């Protein structure tokens, strides 16, 4: 519907006469801390601590990092550890490794800000049981040949589980390997949802950089996810020094908080600058502040 938007915008601009700066009675914003951290299980947990700034005082590209905070990280009932600020990365780092099933909490205290805190529980390990590729199974809405991918994994029983599946391929640009997402993926699977939680059919375009699922319909069962991807998007590429590089499929077992964060973050980005879309805030699980604190378990497999 881009055409639609362009035509309508053009029509309105025919009558557009002017813009001017105005004063709106917006109370000054009280700066808050923003915790941003999504660690993978098996990796050490680090946190990017930032701050918010009043929209009218904001300068594009200004450093919003906060380096003088005390940040404490706690795993389960263990004693909290104080994270160290790393100048090179601009992050607070720790030696604590994210382990599946463990609850973590973080608290940040910085002068001039209210204390902020967040908790999360690392999701369990969900392994890819099998991946099957069936070539040339159907045509998509534009007449392109699609391959079918059958991804199988076991959903942990008795808990709400959230997944994000990502399909990506590699290609060479100036002798460097770049990763790209495949574009549209189709699926008839009722557990797959779009950014706006719309119901889907087999022609709905699902972006391959975020195929969102929740386990309401397959709690505790083996799940076979069937995806249709353009055959041309799944081609392996010969790369100098690397040999044959195959596209990959990744399944991320994520927390509900991250699931909500990433969806809200994406549709906020899509609607950014659209004066007709209803503005929306990005989800946060940080108490008294902004951002996301979460842990993800990821499994990746090559598509051959």
């Amino acid at each position, binding site marked *: 519907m881009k055409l639609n938007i362009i035509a309508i915008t053009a029509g309105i601009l025919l009558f557009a*006469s002017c*813009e*001017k700066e*105005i004063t709106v009675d*917006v109370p000054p914003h009280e700066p808050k801390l*923003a915790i941003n951290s999504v660690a993978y299980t098996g990796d050490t947990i680090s946190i990017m601590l930032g701050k918010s700034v009043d929209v*009218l005082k904001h300068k*594009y590209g200004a450093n919003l990092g906060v380096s003088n905070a005390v940040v404490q990280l706690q795993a389960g009932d263990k004693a909290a550890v104080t994270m160290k600020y790393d100048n090179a990365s601009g992050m607070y780092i720790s030696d604590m490794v994210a382990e599946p099933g463990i609850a973590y909490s973080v608290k940040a205290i910085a002068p001039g800000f209210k204390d902020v805190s967040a908790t999360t529980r690392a999701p369990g390990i969900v392994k890819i049981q099998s991946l099957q590729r069936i070539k040339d199974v159907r045509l998509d809405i534009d007449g392109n040949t699609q391959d079918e991918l059958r991804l199988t994994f076991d959903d942990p029983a008795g808990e709400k589980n959230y997944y994000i599946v990502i399909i990506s391929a590699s290609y060479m640009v100036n002798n460097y390997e770049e990763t790209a997402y495949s574009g549209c993926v189709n699926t008839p699977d009722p557990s797959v949802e779009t950014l706006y939680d719309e119901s889907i059919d087999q022609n709905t375009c699902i972006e391959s950089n975020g195929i969102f699922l929740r386990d309401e319909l397959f709690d505790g069962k083996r799940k076979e996810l069937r995806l249709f991807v353009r055959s041309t998007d799944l081609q392996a590429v010969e790369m100098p020094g690397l040999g044959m590089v195959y596209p990959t499929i990744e399944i991320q077992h994520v927390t509900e908080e991250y699931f909500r964060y990433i969806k809200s973050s994406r549709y906020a980005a899509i609607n950014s600058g659209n*004066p007709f879309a*209803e503005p929306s805030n990005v989800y946060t699980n940080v108490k008294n502040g902004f951002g996301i604190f979460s842990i993800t378990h990821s499994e990746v497999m090559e598509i051959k």
Partner: protein
Amino acid sequence: MTKIKFILFLVATVSCFVTGAQNITVSGYISEAGSGERLIGATVFVPGRNIGTTTNAYGFYSITLPADTFTLRYSYIGYQSQVKQISGKGSQQVNIEMKQEKGLEEVVITSQKDAIQSRTQMSSIDLPIQTIKSLPAFLGEVDVMRAIQLLPGIQAGNEGSTGIYVRGGGPDQNLILLDGVPVYNASHLFGFFSVFNADAIRSVEVIKGGFPARYGGRLSSVVDINMKEGNKEKLHGEGGIGLIASRLTLEGPIQRGKSSFMISGRRTYYDLIAKPFMRGAVRGGYYFYDLNGKANFQLGKKDHLYISGYFGNDKFYARQSNNSNGLLNTDFRTNLQWGNATAVGRWNHEFSPKLFGNLTTYYSRYRFMVSAQTKNQLVGSNEEYLLKYSSGINDKAVKYDFDYLPGANHYIKAGVGFIAHTYKPGAQQTKIRSILANQDTTIGVDDIHANEIDAYIEDDIRISSRFKTNIGLHWTGFSVRNQFYHSIQPRVAARYLITDELSAKASFVQMNQFIHLLTNSSIGLPTDLWVPVTDKVPVQKSYQYAAGMAYTHRTGIEVSVEGYYKTMDNIIEYKEGASFFNTATNWEDKIEIGKGWSYGGELFVQKKKGRFTGLMGYTLSWTNRQFDNLNMGKVYPYRYDRRHDFKIAGIYSLTDRIELSAEWLYGTGNAITLPVAYHSGLEGDEVLVYGERNGFRMPSYHRGDVSIKFSKQKKNWERAWVVGVYNVYNRRNPFYVYSSTNSSGNNAFKQMSLFPIIPSITYQFKF
């Protein structure tokens, strides 16, 4: 509640049979002398007895009184009153032809039904078509909907929009009727003009509350517009040539005195003017047009047939052609078009002097289509790509309405109707023809078929010389996707005449609405989509309580003061972040269901006669919304929550040939959601933080318009020049507000305005 409904129904039903013996019934039609055009709402009054009635939508009246000698006084504002002596028994038919008043009074031909304080109906305003035509016009185009926006309790949406928001209701909650047929998208050019050509219009009535039982299907308002019938005596015409559009209306007899026609057309010509200046490979343009037609036939003394229709369309188009050395020809075309079509047939039959019936059958269609087509002609091969999206709604309906006037104390209206709706929530067609592929695919949501039946009964009861009530019930059944929804909606209105000039009124109504409009644009975009209730999207309901006073001063100035409280359940809004573009699929998943309420007070002053005529309206109101999944469940102000809304308009006849008019509007700024902060994001990006939903206000809206009309009577025709200035002091009113950087590199809020000062000139003629 059930008991109350039953009692109301009983009162209304029993009252049908209350008639006195030895009565005389006088009935007939009231029409305009010289044209034969029936007059709606003319008053028939018995002086000294405080008894009267009014003509219905077809000019029919009936009054039954004890057999006696009495006088009937026929009046209609702007026309010379007539008096008839009646005596005898039984039934008498008295048809009246009323002559227009001469001189300056002629300038203010109005269609006021009867004195404002006398009517049981409250929250209703008849807007004289001549007033509408005399008001300053945007770009010289007289607009019915823009005039309606001047009334209290009715607000415009954004700058330039002809959409209306009535007593806190949404744009979908207005039943806009053209000759009794619903018009689903009453906008041209993204809402800057309405589809109603004022030259083709005879009367406009707006009801904001206290809805009589005969109306149903929308929560907030009824805008009842009737087209001219056509002159039965001789051929007449009128037209105008303006800056952006021209129009022509012709009316005259088909068979003198018995049948007539009216045909009216309007078209913009931006595309035609721009065409010679377009050079190169890219060509494009925009136009809209309207075509109104009506014919009526007297089929005998008791039967009358009306056939009318409307057809209008908007079209944007662009075309680009390239030719590469004769080897490759590329032709790209894109179109965006939308429009309404209505057709209606109405057959009146007078069963008896007391019983009048009308059969209506109609068709109404709204459609929207956007398409893009590319054709490549290579040596030896042709390729074609087509992408088309369309949506719309079709209605086919039949209904029968009765007017029964058993005596002077009752005016009963009843009717039944059936509507077959077809909703087309959107379909996308992809067509590819090339060497590699040849396919034609259509995807989208299937058409949704729904059937609606309704029945009503209402009685305007004269309880005493001072106390009148209107009691009614409206029942609607709606069937969609194997589900059946129905509701009984009670309607009660009462009027107490404190003095002959002053009355107190009160009303209570329940309204139900079985369709929703998917929109969050507020500017009348053609992509706005009508959808029915479903198992996921429930029926909209409202309850409205209103009370007020109405007064007519001896100088003819009418004053009304009203207070109202309205609740609305099951209204819809888009989910946070959802965009209203690409509404083709899964609209039910994109919306949230919540409630709203509005309350406030309205003051309306109107002067209809004399050299100076005008109106003034002030509204003080509060309108809120609450959705469990929006704004964290907290109550927030509706986008068009407008604390103060003030409008004033005046028309002054300087001489018989010169008329001045001016209007000024003020409204509290619209409520908006604005960003309040940025914070660092997960990817090192910057994330925008928005404040409370609709927690901020745009700057207030105000605007003044003026116009002057110079008329001249020629031998056989009349011409007029109308010079107008829209937004005379060049106020930059906000269209929308956003945050951006200013010239100093600092962040700032900016507003986009649409219309600066705009002069216009129009040439009008009449013969």
